[in-house]
């Protein structure tokens, strides 16, 4: 048994034993769980993928004369301005003004909120255009200027839903190609697309949220950030395997960090043909090895993590709940799965290669004594499920 304080002291002394969630598998196989639990202080987990529920709060500072912004655009992408005078929220999936979307099906969605966030983090200039109705104390009614992230007072990423614990494997059992947030799915089960780092993914290594909770320090695109709440659609009541690992969506995390401290490699605009724009983020989360049970959970392997195969031509849009089977991440990563007796080539929307790189970076930061752990202030809710939205009339 170790405490957060003991582990942090070892980190500060640059003596912490840190392994990635991939390395720990073999390590424990060799050493045995009890022995390894005494030695290992931290296991690093990571993921890199499109996370649509992401965005940032920006504060532009005040112009002379002042403006109380009511509508604003960065590089022609609309911001949410229904907050204080020069504060705004930029969302990852916001399209650029005049984007034809899917009117010319399938739309290309070359540029949107995610791309503006990428440009900001890369330190590139973006155009701010803002309007107002004008007030006595804020008389200006319009402005157009160029800003970089360095000009802003704050640029704080606030993401209501990141790090899905597990995810669907999308296929298309229909008769025409379909364009989804998991990419182009060819008809007749000709390809399958998944999106998870599997054995490296944070919440798959801590299935019951024993260490990752509200207040946990995370590595968000190179900046030190925190879990600020359960993620939206958090659903800990889900189907789980004998190892307690969810076999479907399940938990999510709401994350925040200072965008000025992020590295552009891990903040990338995403264009999904026929679907829209988004933002891909790199996230690393350290798991403190407080006891052998927590260590055991981090040794979960791709072959022990299952995801549901879902038909995105019918069952997903219509919420039938039907699945075509379950496959392991070992199968998914091999490049081919079997669905209803048919061999289906697989590809992914999240990058295992980048996740691995992030797990290594976080490991090095902890070893060098640069990243301390923070114990959660509050545990994420167990026994929570996700409600659908009923469509009803006023009197029903």
């Amino acid at each position, binding site marked *: 048994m170790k405490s957060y304080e003991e582990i942090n002291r070892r980190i500060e002394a640059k003596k912490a034993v840190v392994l990635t969630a991939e390395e720990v598998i073999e390590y424990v196989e060799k050493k045995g769980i009890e022995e390894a639990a005494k030695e290992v202080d931290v296991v690093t987990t990571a993921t890199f993928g499109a996370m649509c529920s992401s965005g940032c709060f920006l504060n532009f500072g005040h112009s002379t004369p002042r403006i109380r912004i009511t509508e604003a655009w960065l590089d022609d992408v609309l911001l949410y301005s229904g907050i204080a005078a020069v504060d705004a929220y930029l969302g990852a999936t916001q399209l650029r003004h005049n984007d034809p979307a899917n009117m010319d099906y399938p739309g290309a969605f070359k540029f949107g909120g995610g791309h503006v966030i990428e440009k900001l983090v890369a330190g590139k200039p973006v155009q701010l255009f803002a309007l107002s109705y004008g007030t006595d104390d804020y008389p200006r009614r319009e402005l157009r200027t160029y800003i970089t992230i360095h000009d802003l007072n704050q640029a704080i990423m606030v993401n209501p839903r990141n790090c899905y614990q597990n995810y669907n494997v999308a296929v298309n059992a229909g008769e025409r190609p379909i364009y989804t947030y998991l990419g182009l799915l060819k008809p007749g089960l*000709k*390809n399958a697309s998944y999106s998870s780092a599997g054995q490296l993914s944070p919440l798959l290594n801590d299935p019951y949220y024993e260490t990752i909770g509200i207040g946990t320090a995370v590595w968000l695109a190179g900046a030190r950030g925190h879990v600020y709440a359960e993620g939206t659609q958090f659903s800990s009541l889900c189907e789980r395997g004998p190892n307690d690992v969810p076999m479907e969506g399940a938990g999510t995390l709401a994350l925040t960090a200072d965008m000025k401290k992020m590295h552009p490699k891990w903040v990338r605009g*995403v264009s999904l*043909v026929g679907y829209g724009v988004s933002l891909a983020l790199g996230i690393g989360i350290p798991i403190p090895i407080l006891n052998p049970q927590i260590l055991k959970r981090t040794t979960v392997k791709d072959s022990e993590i299952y995801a549901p195969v879902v038909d995105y031509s019918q069952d997903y849009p219509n919420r039938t709940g039907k699945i075509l089977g379950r496959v392991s991440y070992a199968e998914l*990563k091999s490049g081919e799965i079997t669905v209803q007796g048919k061999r289906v080539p697989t*590809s992914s929307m999240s990058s295992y*290669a*980048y996740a691995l790189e992030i797990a290594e970076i976080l490991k090095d930061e902890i070893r060098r004594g640069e990243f301390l752990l923070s114990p959660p202030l509050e545990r994420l809710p167990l026994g929570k499920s996700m409600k659908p939205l009923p469509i009803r009339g006023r009197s029903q």
Partner: protein
Amino acid sequence: MNTTKKVLFYFPKSETEKPIVYQLVKDYNLMVNIFRAKVTPDEEGYLLLDITGDSSDIDRAYQWIRSLGVQIREDVKGMRWDENGCTSCGACITQCPTAALHIPDRRTMRVWFEADKCIECMNCITLCPFGACSSQF
């Protein structure tokens, strides 16, 4: 006068029940040297070849090939893949007909591009979510 052209025939959906190569030789008096081909019934496919012959015969052959709904590309220069822009997400892997974009090592899952195998089908250029694939032209 004889000329030689490096050319790519791209079949969006297979027209390959027709013996294209045979007819190029027999009806259009062309010499054909195939570098690479993928022709599976009912799937997209391609033929990358050198054709040698009289330029008027080549022109007539092109007209006939186009009439089959097959696309002809003469300047196969290779797609540009930005190694640093590529996140190795893998989204292109099942869309690339020749495995020019592929994952050499399934432990690291890093994506790699082999220019020689690329037939400029444009799939990855339109579909790469990160804009890592672009066309030279």
